[in-house]
């Protein structure tokens, strides 16, 4: 009960801070897990009229484009077994998702960790690991490649579609979006550290690294509204129990050992220079060559790009809830459970 009273005090302080500014704040949560936590815990109704939450590009599933899915399905047709995280299963390719391909007989297996996947791949199986995710997930793929090297496995390859968080965020803040503050992704910051987000200060927008529990988010909003009041652009860390200044140096070394920067196509945002990671040339024999036709991407009626850049609310998209639902997602933000449209749809923000 005492905790709830403390929470109420924090809520009132946040509202008071915003009242002092005399207007509704636009705050972007970069990470999809934050999006879900905000909606799941009803912060969107709790701070209605005070904060307009905008969902950013930090959900790896949402920014994976259909060309990658099409590539994986083609590979499955060539008798490779595809190992993927579960939440990639629903992402629509041009004609079908991995889930649909699987129900039609394609060999697609769900993995919980790429390291486990490598442990369980049979000797007679030609396996491809779908490497998708931001810096949080990249070390796990590095570790799994290390295991492949140790075991001298010739039947395991990686389809790399890994993303970095800094470049898309820079593009977003520079060209696309006007916000009062940023909630920065706690998971990625675990790896990159507070230092990894120092670049945000150049844009002169207050920001805070936040955990994902409801109390984490409350404390982060308190910190963020205080920074906005004070015009303080220093990146704050409200996830100190996990995030260090320098990040996880071991994990960073693993990333540097196996991966290098490359351009990457973000569903909804387009091609971003240096926005991705690929295997270094000395490991290229473990990398699957993927073929993309960027021009043909994206449903023309889908307004995901506008949703990701805060220009449009999900329910303002002509496809939302009509033809685009969690069961039949047409665009990036409806695909993942951590996508903005998906969260609106499930938790009822449009109410």
């Amino acid at each position, binding site marked *: 009960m005492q905790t*709830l009273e403390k*929470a*109420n005090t924090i*809520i009132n302080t946040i509202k008071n801070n915003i009242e002092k500014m005399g207007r509704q704040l636009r705050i972007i949560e970069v990470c999809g*897990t934050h999006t879900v936590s905000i*909606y*799941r*815990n*009803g*912060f*969107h*109704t*709790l701070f209605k009229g005070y904060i307009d939450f905008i969902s950013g590009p930090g959900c*790896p*599933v949402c920014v994976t484009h259909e060309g990658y899915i099409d590539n994986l399905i083609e590979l499955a047709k060539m008798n490779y077994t595809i190992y993927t*995280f*579960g*939440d*990639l*299963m*629903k992402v629509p390719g041009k*004609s*079908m998702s991995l*889930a*649909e391909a699987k*129900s*039609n007989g394609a060999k697609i297996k*769900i993995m*919980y960790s790429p390291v486990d996947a490598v442990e369980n791949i049979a000797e007679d199986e030609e396996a491809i690991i779908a490497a*998708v*995710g*931001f810096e*949080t*997930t990249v070390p796990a793929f590095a570790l799994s490649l290390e295991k492949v090297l140790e075991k001298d496995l010739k039947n395991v390859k990686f389809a790399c579609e890994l993303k970095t968080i800094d470049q898309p965020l820079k593009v977003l803040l520079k060209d696309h979006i006007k916000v009062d503050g940023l909630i920065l992704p706690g*998971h990625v910051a675990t790896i990159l550290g507070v230092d990894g987000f120092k670049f945000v200060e150049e844009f002169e927008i207050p920001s805070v690294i936040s955990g994902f529990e*409801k109390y984490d988010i*409350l404390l982060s909003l308190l910190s963020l509204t205080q920074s906005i009041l004070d015009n303080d652009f220093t990146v704050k860390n409200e996830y100190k129990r996990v995030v260090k200044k320098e990040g996880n140096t071991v994990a960073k070394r693993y990333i540097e050992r196996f991966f290098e920067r490359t351009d990457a196509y973000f569903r909804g945002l387009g091609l971003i220079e240096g926005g991705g990671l690929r295997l270094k040339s000395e490991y290229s024999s473990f990398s699957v060559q993927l073929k993309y036709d960027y021009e043909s991407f994206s449903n023309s009626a889908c307004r995901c790009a506008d949703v990701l850049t805060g220009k449009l609310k999900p329910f303002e998209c002509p496809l939302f809830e009509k033809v685009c*639902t*969690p*069961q039949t997602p047409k665009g990036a933000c409806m695909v*993942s*459970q*951590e996508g903005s449209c998906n969260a609106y*749809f*499930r*938790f*009822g923000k449009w*109410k």
Partner: protein
Amino acid sequence: MMRTIRKEHGNGGKQTYELIDNLFKPIFGSEILKSGDDSTVFSLNGMKVGISTDSFVVKPYFFKGGDIGKLSVCGTVNDLAVAGLEPKYITVSFIIEEGFSIDDLEKITRSIKRYADLAKVEVVAGDTKVVEKGAADGIFINTTGLGVARDTQKMPSISRIKGNQVVIVSGDIGRHGACIYSHNEDLGFEDRIESDCGLLLDVISELMQEVDVAYMKDLTRGGLATALNEIVQKSGFDIKVEEEKIPVADEVKALCDILGLDSYYLACEGRFVAIVNGDEKEKAIEILKKYNRFACEIGKVEESREKRVYLSTTFGGTRILDMLYYEMLPRIC
């Protein structure tokens, strides 16, 4: 594009209901079927009787707190019980994959007998089919149960739901689903999460004797959220539940955190929600607590009729608690 069945058509959520409503019901055309609960209650020679059928495809077949045999009796018997029926007879049909262990089949069969005896139902018919290796996954069991009304004057019915009634849950939620996930994912939770798989006959019998229950529904696939959504769809009323009050065991919460699952959607196999008038809630909760100390009021039926389930969050926000849309799958981060 060819329409094909996907896994989510069978998860008890939105797509399962769409398949039933859009394909099965129109083709079968039965008026009784259209009223559609897990048990169908009808009059036969002046007697109120009810029938329910269910198939069980769980893997692993043996899990902490039960096995597929126990589950196949409890599932059907509980469906009858929440409809206000006293189960009398049950049929058991097996589809078995070639190569299945006869010792395991014997264990499962003994478990069926044990729980049929506890439920005081007699196994009166059955069927056995063996299919080629690869044509099934081990063993599938179907049970069909027949029951008679406990008290024809006090039959729970969706039509008896009205505004301001109280929603009570009979215990902590999500144990069965969490138990099965923990066995299948080998995360070291196997010894910690026990399924709630069990018979609800005694608790429902006592509850119905002491309290006039408007409606009951057991929580199975799709969990609490899906059951409540089914109730609002059929009754037309809204339900508002409070996050703080919904009981979830710590170990279930921990597993949900690790795998990115939502406990409101995890299957239960020994829990139900009861809807009662406000003046009866204390008596109802007192009875339910004798069987499970976590039984409690979780919310209310609202006068509004948008057919929505709302969840009040800890800090006073509100969100929609919708039906299960797709298979819950582990996420990337």
